[in-house]
């Protein structure tokens, strides 16, 4: 593992290698070298399986953090090792190299991320098609600044007749209403 970490750092400038478990590590890579690093890991280092890819909205830092989780099935006598590759993409102009030629299912993930986060993967098949949100007109729904509760309140009616009471407030009303605020 240390060897892989070192080599990945030397070749692709990866940093922040973290062993989460003996069979799971994560590492950060610059967006510009992401595609090449993934291809190298797949073709040369045995990380042939793409478990999933996704994004995290790190709105505080102004980036989406992409996560690609690869798996090397052969490692440790066939027990396998998973590696989570992270890359930050600017939230204001989220564009990432497509990996649909590396893995046959990647285009679906990329289409999902386009729809859910607004992250574009130019060249990825059907990337602009709707994925699960048919007729959706709101902002990309997985972004942290999309308030799903506010959306729901604005879109759907509450069932009439529902009202709840806070014990502290209710007891004040009933037992000592005269007290100062």
């Amino acid at each position: 593992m240390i060897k892989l970490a070192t080599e990945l750092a030397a070749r692709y400038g990866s940093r922040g290698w973290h062993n989460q478990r003996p069979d799971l590590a994560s590492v950060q890579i610059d967006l510009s070298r992401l595609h090449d690093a993934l291809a190298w890991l797949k073709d040369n280092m045995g990380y042939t399986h793409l478990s999933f890819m996704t994004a995290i909205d790190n709105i505080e830092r102004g980036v989406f953090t992409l996560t690609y989780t690869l798996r090397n099935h052969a490692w440790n006598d066939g027990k396998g090792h998973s590696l989570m590759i992270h890359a930050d993409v600017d939230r204001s102009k989220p564009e990432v190299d497509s990996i649909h030629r590396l893995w046959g299912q990647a285009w679906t993930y990329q289409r999902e991320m386009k729809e859910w986060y607004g992250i574009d993967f130019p060249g990825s098949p059907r990337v602009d098609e709707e994925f699960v949100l048919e007729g959706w007109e709101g902002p990309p729904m997985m972004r942290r600044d999309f308030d799903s509760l506010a959306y729901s309140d604005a879109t759907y009616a509450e069932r009439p007749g529902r009202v709840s009471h806070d014990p502290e407030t209710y007891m004040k009303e009933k037992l000592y209403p005269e007290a100062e605020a």
Partner: protein
Amino acid sequence: MKKQAQHIVPPAERANLDLDSGKYLVMWQGPNHPGITGNMSLRLVIEGDTVVDCETHVGYLHRGFEKLMERRLWMQNFPLVCRIAVPEPDFNEYCYAAALEELAGIQIPDKAVWLRTLSLEMIRLASFLMWIGGQAGAFGHGTIGQWTVTMRDYVLDLFEELTGGRIYHMFIIPGGVRGDVPPGFLKHVLETMDIIQKNLDDVELVMFHNVVYKMRAQGLGYIPPDWIDHYGITGPNARAAGVTRDLRKDLGYLAYPRLDFQPITGTVSDAYERSRLRLAEMYQSIDLIRQIVANMPSDGPFREKLPNPLYWKIPAGETYVAAECTRGEYGFYVVSDGSDKPRRVAVRGPSYTHAVSVMERLVRGVNIADVAGLMVSLHTYPPEVER
């Protein structure tokens, strides 16, 4: 009468079709179609009886679970995650709980380890029992479904007894499980396993030694071994192609390292081989359940104390916890920013690739009557695609 199974590999690229030529018909199968595994639809382009193009359309079950989870407390997500894969909710419960425990540094008691394993194997069996009814039904053999769905109900009876729920068990809670086995439960488990095993023998006889089933399933939906990594295919779909991968063995989670079993593999991953393999895995599950009953400790705590769920904060970090579900690699990617709610939860369901990329390619060149059977042979659950 003898038909040699042909292993045709559909082309990688979609054909460039002139839909206005009058040669083709665009036909939607689903979202409400008896041959569809749950609510999803396939947009098929057919030429005569033959499918020449397919697009998978999902979204009919999308409830935004991953978004919902970001605004609920860690513990409040416990009743939510099970809904992501309806026929086998327990894998969600396990992956979510295990991810939280790993991030929070919690060791669960041994009793909980065994009860979790029991619960996962029971649901594996129940899920396969439902699947095999669908597989037989897709080829017109409804009787099998009548038998096996009953058998599944017997497993659900066991779940009801153990957990208080039939479909959503909500048993594997972060920290352990929600209760010990009730009196007499393990005996009921063993009795039920005997009944199911006997029924499976009947299923094996009438379904797998059946000329109709063989003719329709053999050679259908052939997955070449080199697709496995390319498409991220896992589970029985991969094992049927001879790829020995089973996370129960590879990851060695829960009590699996203490159970005696070997991953089952096939040689040619077509619909028939895959169903035979799943049947074998059902027998294997029954065997594992018997082993679990025999080896489970009779007492000891079943849950580790956790902080107050209303304020439970999990240290910042991320992890990916996977488990071998009936369809392959099921995983939860959980990110905590140190607060009382998840920063991000992403669910990896095996159907994500099986039902979309793999299905769309496999269906090219297939007779329209076989589409449903092909799809069931991939054992896909749309909810885990959409989350």
